[in-house]
C-alpha cells in the first residue's frame, strides 16, 4: 500500500499497461489455434505440410468453394442451426420456469432437488449416450432434430435452471406479490413482470445454451446418422477420413464455416451478452 501511494498516478498507468498486456497475451494464446485454423483453410495442400510452417503463401478459396457447394455440408449447417436454436429456446423455456420455481416456491427438499439435478451433470456424457440411443430407437426418434434437441436439453436445462435461479433470487419477491394483488396469477406475474425484467439475463443464457448445442459432438455422433447430422459430426468425419492422408484444408475450412455463424451471432447480440453478464439483476 505504501509503495502504491507514493506514485499513485504512474502506478495506475503502469498497472493498466500490465493488465492490457496480460489481456493481449491471454487472447493470443486462446485465439492462435483459431487463427491457425483460418490460415490453414486458405492454403493449398502443398503449403500445409511445409516445415517450418509458412505464414506467407498464395491463398486459395478452392476448399471453401468445394465444401460450401456440397449439399451435405449445407444440410448439416442447416441442421446445426435448427438444433441449436431449438434446444436454446426449449431449454430456456423449461429451465427458466424450473429456476423460478427453485428460487421462489417454498417446498421442503426443493434445494436438494435442485442440487440433484445439478449433480446429474457430473455423469460423463458418454455414459448417457448409449442408453439415450437405445431409448431413442425404441421411441423411433433416431436421426431427428427433436432427438438432439431433447438430448441437449438434458444438460442445457440444468444449466439454464441454475443460472436463472440465482438471477431470480436477486429480484425482490414483492414484485410478483404486487402483480398477484394487481390481478395476475402466479404464471401471469412470471410472464408479465419477471420475464421482461430478466430479459437480458434470459437472452444471454439462451445464447450460451445455443453455443453449447452448436458445438456438441458426442450425442450428435451417437444419435444421428444422415438426416439430422450436425457440423461437428461433419468435421469429425473429415478428420477420420485419412485414406488419402489427412485433409487439413477441408478440415479447417469446414471448421471455419462452423465458427463464423457463431462469431457473427455473438457480435449481433453482444450488447445483450454484456448487459446480461454485467448487471445480473435489474432492480427498480
Amino acid at each position, binding site marked *: 500500500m505504501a509503495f502504491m501511494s507514493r506514485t499513485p498516478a504512474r502506478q495506475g498507468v503502469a498497472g493498466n499497461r500490465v493488465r492490457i498486456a496480460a489481456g493481449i497475451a491471454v487472447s493470443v494464446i486462446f485465439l492462435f489455434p483459431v487463427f491457425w485454423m483460418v490460415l490453414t483453410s486458405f492454403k493449398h495442400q502443398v503449403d500445409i505440410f511445409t516445415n517450418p510452417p509458412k505464414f506467407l503463401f498464395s491463398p486459395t478459396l478452392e476448399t471453401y468453394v468445394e465444401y460450401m457447394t456440397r449439399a451435405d455440408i449445407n444440410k448439416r449447417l442447416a441442421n446445426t442451426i435448427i438444433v441449436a436454436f431449438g434446444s436454446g429456446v426449449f431449454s430456456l423455456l423449461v429451465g427458466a420456469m424450473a429456476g423460478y420455481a427453485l428460487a421462489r416456491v417454498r417446498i421442503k427438499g426443493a434445494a436438494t432437488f435442485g442440487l440433484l439435478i445439478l449433480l446429474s451433470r457430473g455423469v460423463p456424457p458418454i455414459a448417457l449416450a448409449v442408453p439415450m440411443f437405445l431409448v431413442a430407437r425404441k421411441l423411433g426418434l433416431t436421426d431427428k432434430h427433436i432427438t438432439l434437441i431433447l438430448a441437449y436439453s438434458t444438460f442445457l436445462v440444468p444449466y439454464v435452471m441454475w443460472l436463472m435461479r440465482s438471477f431470480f433470487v436477486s429480484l*425482490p419477491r*414483492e*414484485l410478483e*406479490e*404486487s*402483480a*398477484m*394483488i*394487481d*390481478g*395476475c*396469477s402466479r404464471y*401471469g406475474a412470471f410472464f408479465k*413482470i419477471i420475464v*421482461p*425484467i430478466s430479459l437480458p439475463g434470459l437472452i444471454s443464457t439462451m445464447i450460451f445454451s445455443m453455443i453449447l448445442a452448436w458445438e456438441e459432438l458426442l450425442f450428435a455422433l451417437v444419435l444421428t446418422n444422415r438426416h439430422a447430422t450436425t457440423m461437428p459430426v461433419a468435421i469429425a468425419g473429415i478428420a477420420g477420413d485419412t485414406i488419402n492422408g489427412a485433409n487439413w484444408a477441408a478440415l479447417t475450412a469446414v471448421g471455419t464455416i462452423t465458427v463464423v455463424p457463431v462469431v457473427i451471432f455473438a457480435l449481433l447480440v453482444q450488447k445483450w451478452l454484456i448487459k446480461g453478464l454485467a448487471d445480473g439483476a*435489474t*432492480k*427498480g
Partner: protein
Amino acid sequence: MGTVQIRNARKAYGAVEVLHGISIDIEDGEFVALVGPSGCGKSTLLRMIAGLEDITGGDILIADRVVNNVAPKDRDIAMVFQNYALYPHMNVRDNMGFALRQRRVPKPEIAERVSAAARILGLEALLDRKPRQLSGGQRQRVAMGRAIVRDPNVFLFDEPLSNLDAKLRVQMRSEIKELHQRLNTTTIYVTHDQIEAMTLADRVVVMNGGVIEQMGPPLELYDRPASLFVAAFIGSPPMNFLSGRLAEGDILLMADGTRLRLPVGDPKRRSEVTVGVRPEHFAVAETGWPAVVSVVEPTGSETQITARIAGQTIRVLVRGRFSAPPETVIHLQVAPEHVHIFDPAPLPDLAELEDVA
C-alpha cells in the same frame, strides 16, 4: 363495504407458530395500525389478509366474505410494500394502470383514473418516467398511486415510510392521513414506529410475540396501557419505571429503603411491582418524591430533566423553563390518574426498536 374481520387467526411456519390466535374487527373506513417490535408478526398478519401467506388456523373475512382460500387478485385489496415493488420496466403511468389493465377496464377509463390519481398525489409531471428515474419519495408516491387508482375495498400498507429519511417520512405521514380522510377507504397499516401508528390510526393494535397486547384508540393506549409492554412501547420519550415492593397499600418501598408515597393505593397488591409515570406527567413542586438532578436540557418550549430516585434514572419533561445545578434535590408530584402500577416484567428493548427506525 370494506370491513375486515380476523377471527382467531394463526400462522405456523413448519412447527413454529408465529401468530397465536389474533382477532380484530375492522369497520368500513377505519384506519387501523398494527404496531410492535420487529419480528412480532405484523407483516405476516398483513400478508395473510392480502392472501400472500396461507392461513394456518382461524378465518379472515373481507366485506363479510371468508377469504381464506381466495387468491390475492380476487380479494379486492391494494397493497403498498416497504420497497414499493414498482415494476421497473414500466413507466409511472403503466405502473399505475397495470391493475386496471389486468381487469380489462376500458382504456379511456384507465387513462382517466390514472390521471385523477396522479393529480391527487402530484405525479402528473412524472407519468412518463421509469421507476429508476425517481427519488425515494416519488417512488413511494407512485406506490400509493398504484393503490388508489384501484379504488379497492381495503388498503394494506407494510412499513411504507421506512425507506424514507426522517423529514420526508413526517411529510408523507400527513399525506397518508389526508388521503385517508379524503377517500375513506378501510386501511390496515403496519409499522414498528409507534408515533406513526399513534398519529395516523383511528385504532392501534399493539402486537408482541405473535399476540395482541392491547388494541384501542391511540390516546386510550397512552392513557391506560394494559401491560408494561404497551406502557413502555407507546409514548415518546418513553415512560419511566420505578421498581420496588408495595407496602401499606400506597407506599413504594425501594431497594435502598426509600419510601415513595403513591397518590393512589392498590390494597390488593402486596408484592413486587413496577410503577410507571410518563416524563410529561411529573410536576416539580415544593413537596413530593425527592429526586437528584443529573442533567437539565432546555429546548425553549420545554425542559427535559434527567434525575435519580433511589439510584434509578428517570426523565422529567416540564413545560417552559427550569434550571437547577446538578445534584440539587427537587420534588416531583404526579396526579393519581397518571400513576400506572404493573406486575414486574422484562421491559421491551427500546434501544433496539429505535435502531430499526
